[in-house]
């Protein structure tokens, strides 16, 4: 903001140098030097000499602004607008003053006078002011213009990315921020914004990668640290999330809410559930008035102790009657326990608080259905389907309730939609730690780490040809053929090795293939391996012959 004000000031001063009479140039110099009193005399003299020119009004406005007299500045800018309604500096300065005085409508009027297709600097300033007002849509439009005029400008791209992220236009946001990152690959701000945009898109693994890079560049930035912890949790990297919360809490030890979230992440980490639950219990004891603490603890204990979970949720609702998640969870659990009459009021409350929540409507429908209120259940499921365009569960439930009503043809449509949307396999979250660290390693080290990981996996799943192929590919790229051959001959020959031969043939890298072949032959002669070795040799020989080598 300050940068832009200075720029405009310099621009105005430049204009003065070019066009203004000597007295005004002197006044501008005095203003720059902070000699407001002396400058004031010159301006008064000039303004009293007859009808002031637009340039004089502009400079007078700037003078009063610089010297802390906002009212007089405003008066002169307004006078300028009367003769030049689209005057850039006048409108920008007036908009700024209106924003500071919390008069957004007035600010909008000034900014609107500037249009949306002005010069890059003006649009950049207007975009910034719109963003300050929270009007990110208009801010995004202005920054898009700036980015179009200055495609290689990091600031323009960064601003566009930030604004677009806040309007929810995540595709534009990611595109702009990716472009910004290409200009400054290690800029913590860009990495953070891009990571946040990916997290907002639900692309948590990528978000974790970017935010880990951001944290490497800005290790003491609390915003980055917290975003990383949350993204890691979103990705299901619970162990990593707990560590990331730890790191954040070193920077912000007083953030009790994050201490609670850390306990939750810990409880979801493989082998550390009890530890996490204990921490959450301690948290609830320490801060009994935090509804979220009761809610989180309830989430962890419902399987083993449903009644305790219900009590905790009741307390969460008592403390925060507007907590839709607690109402929903209590309704869900009561339904699961067959207590649908009791579940209903909670889901009705949740529906009122969060009328756009898909899961609330879906769960509400299930309870209504269990209470034999089929038509109301249908309406609830329809609402869920309408709100959740990709929600497969609500589609199954809607199909089922329609079947119950004998509306088979319509039901089948929804059931088919469910089948299409249902993911083939649930995401396999990684609850142990390690992903954040991997993201921050130098490329070579990360590669070695991946090799070690895959080697361990292949050891655990020796007959998994897909894993073998992944490992073989990495080894092949490193030219570590001996290890591939050793692996191929250490047990039953996996399909992986045959595919690998195919891969080498496709390139074709005859030298490598020949080396591979001779290694296999040597191993065979040395009595290493199994009968499958002959098959591998056959493939290799055939490949070499085919290639005329």
């Amino acid at each position, binding site marked *: 903001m300050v940068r832009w004000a200075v720029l405009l000031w310099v621009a105005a001063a430049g204009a003065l140098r070019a066009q203004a009479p000597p007295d005004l140039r002197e006044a501008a110099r005095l203003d720059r030097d902070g000699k407001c009193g002396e400058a004031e005399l010159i301006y008064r003299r000039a303004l009293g000499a007859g009808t002031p020119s637009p340039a004089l009004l502009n400079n007078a406005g700037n003078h009063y602004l610089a010297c802390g007299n906002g009212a007089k500045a405003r008066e002169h800018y307004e006078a300028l607008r009367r003769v030049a309604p689209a005057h850039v500096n006048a409108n920008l300065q007036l908009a700024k003053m209106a924003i500071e005085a919390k008069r957004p409508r007035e600010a909008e009027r000034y900014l609107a006078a500037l249009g949306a297709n002005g010069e890059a600097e003006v649009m950049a300033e207007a975009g910034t002011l719109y963003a300050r007002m929270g009007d990110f849509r208009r801010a995004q439009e202005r920054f898009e213009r700036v980015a179009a005029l200055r495609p290689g400008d990091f600031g323009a791209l960064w601003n566009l990315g930030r604004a677009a992220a806040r309007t929810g236009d995540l595709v534009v946001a990611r595109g702009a921020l990716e472009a910004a990152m290409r200009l400054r690959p290690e800029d913590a701000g860009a990495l953070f914004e891009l990571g946040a945009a990916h997290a907002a898109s639900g692309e948590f693994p990528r978000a974790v990668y970017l935010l880990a890079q951001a944290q490497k560049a800005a290790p003491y930035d609390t915003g980055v640290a917290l975003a990383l912890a949350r993204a890691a949790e979103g990705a299901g990297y619970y162990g990593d999330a707990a560590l990331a919360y730890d790191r954040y809490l070193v920077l912000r030890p007083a953030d009790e809410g994050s201490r609670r979230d850390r306990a939750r992440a810990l409880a979801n980490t493989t082998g550390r559930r009890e530890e996490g639950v204990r921490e959450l219990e301690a948290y609830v004891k320490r801060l009994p008035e935090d509804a979220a603490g009761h809610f989180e603890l309830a989430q962890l204990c419902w*399987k083993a102790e*449903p009644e305790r979970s219900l009590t905790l949720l009741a307390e969460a609702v008592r403390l925060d009657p507007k907590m839709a998640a607690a109402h929903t969870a209590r309704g869900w659990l009561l*339904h*699961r*326990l*067959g207590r*649908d009459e009791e579940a209903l009021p909670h889901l009705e409350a949740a529906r009122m608080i969060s009328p756009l929540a898909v899961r609330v409507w879906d769960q509400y429908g*299930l309870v209504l*259905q*269990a209470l034999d209120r089929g038509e109301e259940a249908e309406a609830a499921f329809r609402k869920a389907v309408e709100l959740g365009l990709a929600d*497969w*569960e609500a589609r*199954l*439930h809607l199909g*089922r309730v329609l*079947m*119950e009503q*004998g509306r*088979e043809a319509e*039901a*089948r449509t929804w*059931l088919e939609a*469910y*089948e299409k949307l*249902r993911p083939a*396999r*649930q995401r396999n979250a990684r609850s142990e730690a390690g992903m954040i660290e991997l993201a921050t390693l130098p490329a070579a080290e990360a590669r070695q780490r991946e090799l070690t990981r895959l080697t*361990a996996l292949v*050891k*655990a*799943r*020796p*007959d*998994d040809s897909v894993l073998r192929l992944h490992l073989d590919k990495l080894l092949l790229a490193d030219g570590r053929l001996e290890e591939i051959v050793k692996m191929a001959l250490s047990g*039953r020959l996996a399909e992986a090795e045959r595919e690998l031969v195919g891969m080498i043939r496709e390139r074709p890298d005859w030298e490598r293939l020949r080396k591979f072949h001779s290694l296999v032959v040597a191993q065979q002669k040395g009595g290493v391996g199994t009968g499958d070795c002959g098959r591998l040799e056959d493939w290799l020989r055939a490949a070499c012959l085919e290639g005329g080598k």
Partner: protein
Amino acid sequence: MKAALAWLLLFAPAAPLFTDIASRSDFAYVTNNGFAAGRKYFPQTLCGGVAVLDFDNDGLMDLYFTNGAQFPEMKKTGPKFHNALLRNKGGGVFEDVTARAGLAGVGYSLGAAAGDFDNDGFADLFVAGAGANTLYRNAGDGTFQEVTAKSGLGTKPAGTLSVQGAWVDYDHDGYLDLVLSNYTVWTPATDQRCVREDGVDYYCHPKTYPSVPHRLYRSRGDGTFEDVTEAAGFATARGKGMGIAIADVNGDGWEDIFIANDTEPNFLFVNQKNGKFVEQGLALGVAYNDDAATVSAMGADVRDFDNDGWPDVFYNDLTEQVWGLFRNLRGKSFRYVSAATGLGPLSMPFSGWGAGFIDFDNDGWRDLYSANGDVDSLRVGAAQQDTLFRNVEGKRFVNVSGAAGPHFERKGYQRGVAFADLNNDGFLDVVVTSLGRKPSILMNSGAGGGHWLQLRLVGRKANRDSIGARITVTTPAGRTLHDWKSPSVGFLSSSDPRVHFGLGAEAKAASVEVQWPGGGVLRLQDVAANRILTLEEP
């Protein structure tokens, strides 16, 4: 406090108690899945089928157990892997007649299904296998002949791992056909090995293996079968089949087939009455649970748990999943009622395999028995006890395992379970296998239990076993009880071929009606309770 407890013990109503009497008999059978130490093979999680049959027609139900094999050879390399036929001598004593009967088996045996496929009045046996399937024909003289190749039931795609067979006369031609649940394509050579970081083997996730179609074999009526998998509409539905349960779910008079699938949607093959089936699990609401998810469905049963005249669907599954109970809404669709009936918290701690509806106290409401134990032994809490959930008037289930006898405190890795009235006292007993152990033969004391009726059905035009018959019992007070005859139950098992009804406090049935598949109907009035009746198709 003590006085109050004593009063409670004195005046509390007596409840049936199950007592394990296996130790009274001299037999060698121990469920042996071939795991010794180190390397684990995928089929080892599945072992220990039970079939109940009266192979010698002496009126006492005998028991047949299936067993594993040596890995990786997949051969029964010694008696420790033999299947076992135990003849019921009465008085709670069983005699091992396996060798004489010729039923020691081959390969890795899984599900056992008893049924009179040739209508000669003697119960035959089909044994599904991780390798070959086997059909044994009861010669009627205490011996069985292996007739697999001749029958055509040995045909299946190479490497198919079959889990369970179930007899059903799906085309009402009077001969039993066979439906077969298959899990995957598997051989010792393609077995995937999974090893923990500490070097300990564990059983790989089912998703490691491909799904396959289940199969249907139609009887030609001359002791041979044709594979009609494709023609009947079974080929396009690929699953990982476990338990099979059969009943007429839509009231059209034709048997439908439910197959529980592990980690895949469950199947409900609806009989089209023309030799074809259409898989309707999704449309009718039994493919997924209410979380719109698949589970590791294991054992299956389809009976009328709420006495509304429509068969309901049940499956059990693994720990932290909820066992599935689906109420039949007059044949139009099913509603998931696990939550409404209280099964959620009751079932979540348990990994169930063999399971089924059993009215253990003859109150006229079918209760739920489940044989439990985790897939592997590596997790804390993997060894589990069996559970008995009492059905409270078709509305809720409550756990009564704690009062049902010491068996329900013994932890292990139970698998197959079958229900039978082994001493003909009118109370259903339970036979359950457990990995690495002798089976438990749990005799029901019947203490405090209600009156009962047991029906032995004989088909004439219909298949002799009368599988598929619909039976309706009406009591003088107006209660109506229903069942659809199908011994296939739970997981790897088949139960008492007779149809059992608990009548509660009523000492007679006002009427008994049997509708045989194909149309024969028999109606009886004023039938005194506490009897085993043989009813022949008119």
